[in-house]
C-alpha cells in the first residue's frame, strides 16, 4: 500500500506531512512525560524486527499465496500507540530510503495511511476496548485473553487497512493522478485490502498469542481487568459499524453512473439547496471567497500544484511538434553525456 511520489500532488503531500507531523509531535510529547515509556533501544529493536518480519512469507493454508505481519497493530500492542507510531515512522522512512518502497515526498501520506490508523485507531478504538471488555469471560482467564487478542488483532488489521486503502484512494483522487472514477477505484482497492487485512490479522494474532503465552507482561492491556474499559463492547460495535458505513459509502459510489464520484458526493448526492447552504459553488467547483481567489492566484504564480490541462485546451502543453522534436534532442543530449563519461572512463583505464 506504499504510495509513490508520482501518485501525489505536492499540495496533498504537504498536507499529509503536516497531519503526520502533528501526530508525531504529540506522540513525542506524550512519551517524554511517560515514565513507563519503552526505551529507545526497545523501540529500535522491535521496529527492526517488524521490518525483518515483513519479509517472511507465511503460507495461507489451502492457497498458493502468502501473507505478512501487520506492523502497526503489532507495534502498538507491544509498545503502546505513541511509541508504536514513532517506530512505524522510522520503518517507513528506512523502507523509502533503502528499499525504494514509497518515496521521500510521499512519506507523510504513507505514515498517515499505515502508521496513524494502525497505531492510534487500532489501539484506542479496537485493541484497548476489546482487551478491557468482559467478552469470552466464561472461558477462563487465559483462554478469554487469547480469544480477545485474536479478535482484536484480526478486527484491528482489517479495519485499519480498510481506512488506509480508502485514504490512498482519496489522496490519489485529490492529486488528480488517475482517470479512474472515484467509486471504481475504491471498489478495486477496498476488497483487495479486505483479504490482505484478514490474512495479516491472523498472522499478527498468532504472533501476539505466542508472546502472551510465553511472556504475558509484554502484551499491552493483557492483564487489564475485564469490564474495566471506559467504552463498552456496544460502543466498540457502534464505532466499527460507523467505520464500515463510511467505507461502504465509498463503495456504494461505484454503483453511481456518474463518472466523477467525488463531484457526485459533493453535489449530486445532496438535498436540494445543499450546495448553497454549504457555500459550494458548482460552477467554481469549490468554496468561493476572496481568500480562495487569492490562494488560487498564488497557486497559479508558483504553479507547484499543476493546473491539469485538458485535451484540446490552450494550456495543454507539450503537444506541439516542436515539443516532441525538443524532447528527442534532450534525450540525445542525455545519451551524449553517458557516451562522453564512458569514453573518459575508458581512457582513464587505458
Amino acid at each position, binding site marked *: 500500500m506504499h504510495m509513490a511520489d508520482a*501518485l501525489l500532488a505536492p499540495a496533498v503531500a504537504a498536507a499529509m506531512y503536516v497531519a503526520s507531523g502533528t501526530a508525531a509531535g504529540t506522540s513525542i510529547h506524550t512519551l517524554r512525560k511517560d515514565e513507563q515509556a519503552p526505551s529507545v533501544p526497545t523501540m529500535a529493536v522491535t521496529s527492526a524486527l517488524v521490518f525483518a518480519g515483513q519479509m517472511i512469507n*507465511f503460507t495461507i493454508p489451502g492457497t498458493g499465496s502468502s501473507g505478512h505481519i501487520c506492523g502497526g497493530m503489532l507495534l502498538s500492542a507491544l509498545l503502546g500507540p505513541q511509541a508504536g507510531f514513532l517506530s512505524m515512522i522510522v520503518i517507513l522512512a528506512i523502507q523509502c530510503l533503502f528499499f525504494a518502497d514509497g518515496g521521500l515526498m510521499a512519506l507523510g501520506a504513507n505514515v498517515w495511511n499505515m502508521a496513524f490508523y494502525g497505531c492510534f485507531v487500532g489501539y484506542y478504538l479496537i485493541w484497548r476496548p476489546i482487551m478491557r471488555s468482559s467478552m469470552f469471560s466464561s472461558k477462563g482467564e487465559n483462554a478469554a485473553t487469547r480469544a480477545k487478542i485474536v479478535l482484536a488483532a484480526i478486527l484491528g488489521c482489517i479495519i485499519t487497512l480498510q481506512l488506509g486503502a480508502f485514504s490512498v484512494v482519496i489522496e490519489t483522487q485529490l492529486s488528480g493522478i488517475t482517470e479512474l472514477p472515484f467509486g471504481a477505484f475504491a471498489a478495486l482497492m477496498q476488497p483487495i485490502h479486505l483479504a490482505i487485512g484478514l490474512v495479516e490479522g491472523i498472522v499478527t494474532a498468532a504472533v501476539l498469542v505466542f508472546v502472551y503465552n510465553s511472556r504475558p507482561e509484554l502484551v499491552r492491556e493483557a492483564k487489564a481487568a475485564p469490564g474495566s474499559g471506559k467504552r463498552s463492547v456496544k460502543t466498540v460495535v457502534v464505532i466499527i459499524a460507523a467505520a464500515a458505513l463510511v467505507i461502504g459509502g465509498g463503495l456504494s459510489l461505484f454503483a453511481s453512473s456518474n463518472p466523477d464520484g467525488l463531484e457526485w458526493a459533493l453535489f449530486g448526492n445532496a438535498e436540494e439547496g445543499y450546495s448553497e447552504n454549504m457555500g459550494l459553488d458548482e460552477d467554481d467547483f469549490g468554496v468561493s471567497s476572496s481568500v480562495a481567489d487569492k490562494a488560487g492566484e498564488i497557486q497559479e504564480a508558483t504553479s507547484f500544484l499543476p493546473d491539469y490541462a485538458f485535451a484540446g485546451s490552450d494550456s495543454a502543453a507539450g503537444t506541439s511538434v516542436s515539443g516532441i522534436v525538443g524532447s528527442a534532442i534532450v534525450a540525445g543530449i542525455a545519451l551524449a553525456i553517458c557516451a562522453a563519461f564512458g569514453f573518459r*572512463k575508458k581512457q582513464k583505464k587505458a
Partner: protein
Amino acid sequence: MSEISGQLTQLRQTDSLSSGNSAIHRLHPLAKLVVTIVYIVCTVSFGKYEFSGLVPMVLYPVLLFQITGIPFAAFIKKMRYVLPLVCAIGLFNPLFDKDPLIVLGGLVISGGTVSLITLVIKGILCLSASFLLIATTPFDDICRALRIVRVPSLIVSLMMLTYRYVAVLIGEASVMTDAYKLRAPGQKGIEFKAWGAFLGQLLLRSMDKADRIYGGMQLRGFDGSFSFASLRKARLSDWLYAIILSAVFILLLRFDLSELIGSLFV
C-alpha cells in the same frame, strides 16, 4: 539465496555505494537533501500532459549517475516495488481518457496514453533522485542533516539505532527461514501451525537483546538522548550546488526547454 538474504545484500550494497568519493559524495548532506526534495517536488508538479517539459528533468539523474559512477543496474532493482503500483493506477488512463492529444501523421496518441507515460517517467525520476541521495550519502550523515533541520532527536536516534538493528535482524530472520526451509523441503513459506512461534521466538529474543543493550548504554552514561558529532560546515560550493540546481529545476518547471529547443529547428 533466499529473498531475505537478497534484501540484506541490497542494504549492504547501498551502504557501500554511499562511502564512495566522487564530487557529489563530498558535498554537504543537507545540500543534497535540499536538492533532492526540490527535484522531486518540481518533477511531480508537471501537468499530466506536459511530457516534453518533463523530459529535460532526466538530465539530473543521468549526470549524477555518470559523475558518481554508481552503476545504473543497482537502481533498476529498486524499481520493482514502486513501479507496479504506479503502472497499475496509470494503466486506466488510456481507457478513460481517449481524446486525441497528439496527431503525428497517421498516428493518433490519446491524452490517457500521454498521461500514463508522463506518470511512469515521473515515478522513475523521483525514485532515481531518492536513490542517488542515499547512494551518495552515508545514512548517519543524512540523520545529522535531519537534526540540522530540527527533526526531533528521538526520531533521529530511533532511525540510527533501527538502521543498525535492521541488518542484524534481517540476518537472523534469514538464518531462521533457511533452517526452516531445509527441514521442510518443497514447502513455500512458513506453515500455519508455526506462524506464531516462528516470529514470536525472534521477537522475544530481540526484546531481551534490547534490554541488554539499554542496560549497557545506561552503564556507559546514556541519559536518553544521543549527542551527534556535528557535520563539517557548509562550504561555498555546497551552497552554490543547492541554489543553482534548485533554480534550474524551478526554471525547467516554468519554461518548457524541449519546446524552446525544438522551436529553433522546426
